[in-house]
């Protein structure tokens, strides 16, 4: 009897533990490759800066900027002055210590080439390279979203806006103390511009941007001249010409530019141009950087920066909470509430100008989504607010465009808004020739309407969206099949146009000029490499082409606003919402704050953080 009672008690304890441990499924995010791909939009160089999407402040939702708006002036080229690092740390902090940053992914940067190829350009590469490689001619202010002078102290622009002459400032040095000259800027651009058509794996990820450059030469040791092939919008031009970082030519020219087996600098760079230099590189374990005493802006306050992977997305926040690490630049949405309420960490939350947005993508090459009526009906059948709550814990803002609302210059707030209205959806279908036979919607051919929603199983939010669509569209009499695929299989299906609806996510990284999104919407054989829905509208092609070459911002804005309206009318995608961003640091990190972009570490901000004085 006693034995039996003992067994029963033990069983009860086990069951209770099992129930307690069961909870929300661990959310998954898109693989790093997806995030990296979106980060790559518009990237031209190791500093990962790109064309600004607006000259004026799009930072209405940003935290306090490093410089008060209006307190400084741009020159005639619209470029603001350089800001050097402060000499003393923030109040209450000291120099020294190690800042440990943990990522959301299990794979760290696999190489640290300053001009990475398509495969090596990952989110983790950006984390590390942002601090190894700097001294770009111009820097992008992540708070105010405009350009500043960096390694260049002066810029002259030709009257045809095609030639940009940069004068280097004095005192530029690599981490080994050797001077940085104009040739050190020219060399990497020459190399990275080479297009290996036989093996695109050898190409620089931003090669399409560099291919806008006609000539990139050193006039003398302190002057770099960049001539574009055509006149471009100022922000794009400055990005292509000014965002390139130098590489020590006398060192690198001994080796092939790409090829880890023959170029030891790719895996273990001995000479760098940024605020930090490489101390330790352990594959998938940790990457440690130490301060570069020769950096022209000054020295970072932390002696070392350590970058760590995270086997699971939730581990990043847990490790910061436990005090094992200092900073997680992104955390899982399911931990948002706890992180926000946790007084033991510093929690940052903001809406960035380049936030990730989610959308529903239609395959317009076949029925039923070759029919605008069906697309509009689906748009009206989606309660986006409810969907945001269900799949992303409500952590976002509704969106009607690929351009973020924070980007006031180009954003069109007046596009058609497809409000949630099932009755309207039904009416549209009826007017479109669809009939309801009992609970089943039938098409014009008399057959029941049925289609498949495909999504990658690595993304829990998209799985929830798929389920929502299935339930929601059932109310219109439509049978929806949900097809979750492992990511590679999902990509294969989408590339082969073997889907009806795909659930996508884009954005992220540095602010892409709207020009960076054109590959999603222009006709496929006209450069629409990301247009996997069979959408083609010659007017869209024409407008993107004009907007990409128009130098006047106001005129460009007109083009982009028209593009957004047409997309809203044609509805190749239904934009759902933009996600908010959030990060955490431990309390002993002084000076940490978010900027107007989606990552706190942009603009060399980690150099300005410091450990609390003990």
């Amino acid at each position, binding site marked *: 009897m006693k034995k039996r009672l003992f067994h029963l008690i033990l069983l009860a304890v086990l069951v209770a533990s099992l129930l307690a441990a069961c909870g929300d499924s661990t959310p998954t995010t898109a693989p790093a490759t997806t995030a990296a791909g979106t980060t790559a939009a518009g990237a031209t160089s190791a500093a990962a800066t790109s064309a600004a999407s607006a000259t004026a402040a799009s930072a209405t939702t940003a935290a306090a900027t490093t410089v008060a708006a209006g307190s400084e002036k741009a020159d005639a080229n619209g470029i603001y002055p350089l800001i050097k690092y402060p000499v003393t740390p923030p109040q209450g902090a000291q120099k020294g210590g190690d800042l440990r940053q943990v990522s959301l992914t299990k794979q760290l940067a696999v190489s640290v080439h300053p001009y990475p190829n398509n495969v090596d350009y990952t989110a983790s590469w950006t984390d590390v390279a942002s601090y190894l490689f700097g001294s770009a001619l111009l820097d992008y202010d992540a708070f105010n979203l405009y350009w500043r002078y960096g390694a260049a102290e002066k810029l002259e622009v030709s009257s045809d806006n095609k030639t940009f002459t940069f004068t280097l400032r004095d005192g530029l040095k690599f981490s080994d103390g050797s001077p940085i000259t104009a040739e050190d800027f020219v060399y990497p651009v020459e190399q990275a511009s080479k297009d290996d058509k036989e093996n695109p794996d050898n190409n620089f990820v931003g090669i399409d941007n560099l291919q806008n450059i006609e000539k990139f030469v050193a006039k003398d040791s302190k002057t770099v001249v960049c001539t574009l092939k055509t006149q471009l919008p100022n922000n794009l031009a400055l990005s292509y010409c000014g965002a390139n970082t130098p590489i020590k030519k006398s060192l690198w020219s001994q080796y092939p530019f790409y090829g880890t087996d023959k170029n030891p600098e790719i895996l273990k760079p001995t000479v760098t141009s940024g605020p930090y230099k490489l101390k330790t590189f352990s594959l998938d374990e940790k990457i440690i950087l130490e301060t570069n005493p020769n950096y022209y802006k000054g020295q970072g306050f932390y002696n070392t920066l350590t970058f*760590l992977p995270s086997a699971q997305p939730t581990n990043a926040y847990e490790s910061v909470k436990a005090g094992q690490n200092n900073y997680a630049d992104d955390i899982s949405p399911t931990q948002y509430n706890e992180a926000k309420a946790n007084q033991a960490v510093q929690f940052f939350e903001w809406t960035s100008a380049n936030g990730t947005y989610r959308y529903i993508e239609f395959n317009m090459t076949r029925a039923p989504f070759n029919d605008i009526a069906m697309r509009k009906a689906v748009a009206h059948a989606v309660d986006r607010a409810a969907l945001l709550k269900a799949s992303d814990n409500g952590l976002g803002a509704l969106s009607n465009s690929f351009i973020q609302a924070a980007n006031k210059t180009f954003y069109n707030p007046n596009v058609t808004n497809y409000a949630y209205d099932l009755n309207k959806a039904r009416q549209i279908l009826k007017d479109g020739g669809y009939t309801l036979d009992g609970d089943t919607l039938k098409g014009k051919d008399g057959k029941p309407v049925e289609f498949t929603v495909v999504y990658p199983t690595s993304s829990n939010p998209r799985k929830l969206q798929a389920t929502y669509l299935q339930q929601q569209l059932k109310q219109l009499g439509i049978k929806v099949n949900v097809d979750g695929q492992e990511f590679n299989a999902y990509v294969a299906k989408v590339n082969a146009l073997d889907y009806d609806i795909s659930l996508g996510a884009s954005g992220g990284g540095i602010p892409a000029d709207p020009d960076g999104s054109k590959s999603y919407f222009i006709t496929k054989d006209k450069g629409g490499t990301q247009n996997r829905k069979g959408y083609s509208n010659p007017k869209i092609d024409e407008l993107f082409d004009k907007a990409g070459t128009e130098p006047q911002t106001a005129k460009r804005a007109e083009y982009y606003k028209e593009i957004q309206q047409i997309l809203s009318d044609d509805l190749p995608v239904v934009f759902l919402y933009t996600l908010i961003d959030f990060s955490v640091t431990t309390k002993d990190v002084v000076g940490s704050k978010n900027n107007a972009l989606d990552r706190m570490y942009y603009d060399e901000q980690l150099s300005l953080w410091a450990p609390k004085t003990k």
Partner: protein
Amino acid sequence: MTHFIIRRIIQSLLLLWAVMTLSFILTRIAPGGPEAIYFENRNIGPEEIAAIRRARGLDDPWFVQYFTWLWQTITFDFGVAYSYARRPVSEVIWTKLGPTFQLGLISYLIGLIGIPLGIYAARHRGKFGDNAVRIFTVVGSAVPTFWLGLVVIIILVNTFKWFPQGQGEGGPLSWFVHIIIPAFILSSGAMVAFTRFVRSETIETLSQDYVRTAKAKGISEKQIRNWHVLRNSLIPVVTLLGALLPTVVSGAAIIEAIFNWPGMGQLFITAAAARDYSILMAILLMGTFLTILGTFLADIAYGWVDPRIRYERS
């Protein structure tokens, strides 16, 4: 014995070839390919994907790909790891082997605790000690290791902060504190297996006539246990030891993922997700080879432990 060994070597090589051929086919027919990594890259369209596949030999006829891989494997050329900046596969695996070997070896040694546990349970059959051990083995068999790992992390790592995650960076103490929890959880399966096997074998051996005779002759309990019972009870353990050998170096994907351990298991998952065929095939080859080797060594040891077993030419 020599004939047996030669025959087993030939059989092992054939088995290795068959398993690897099947692995080659399965990895190639899985949907999708390495092009998924370029999904959001606007520079990479269908033409570029085609060029990349050509450069990697992925568009060659299947038999060309197969024999190219087979020849390279025979000559110990495992190719380059495309998802690791085209480092040699051997270099990538070598960097992951250390953490996995540490974790595997420690868990292997912890698992051996099941042997004295099984003997203890057998000797105290029907008593509290035996019941406790039996409950432990039942629970250990039923509870999935991933669940156990997550619960341990929630309670011991995140709540009480008694143990950290990842690999230790300090001295031996830091290393031990970091490794002990994942090693213990990884060892649970082996420990349960050893306990159950040894317990049942020991109980059977204890009931043998020669043991009763030894007791009747007045031989001490200790001598009976060490000379008569233990050696006979350990025969099935030899088999288990061989079967568990591959885990020391092939990694435990789930435990490594949960505990942020940068070993072979995580490498396999990363390579599978990226369709990095070179790494996948190299790891599969290693795992298969070790499994066959472990079984082979177990068979040899079997003959040594039990003199009744002779591998003679039939």
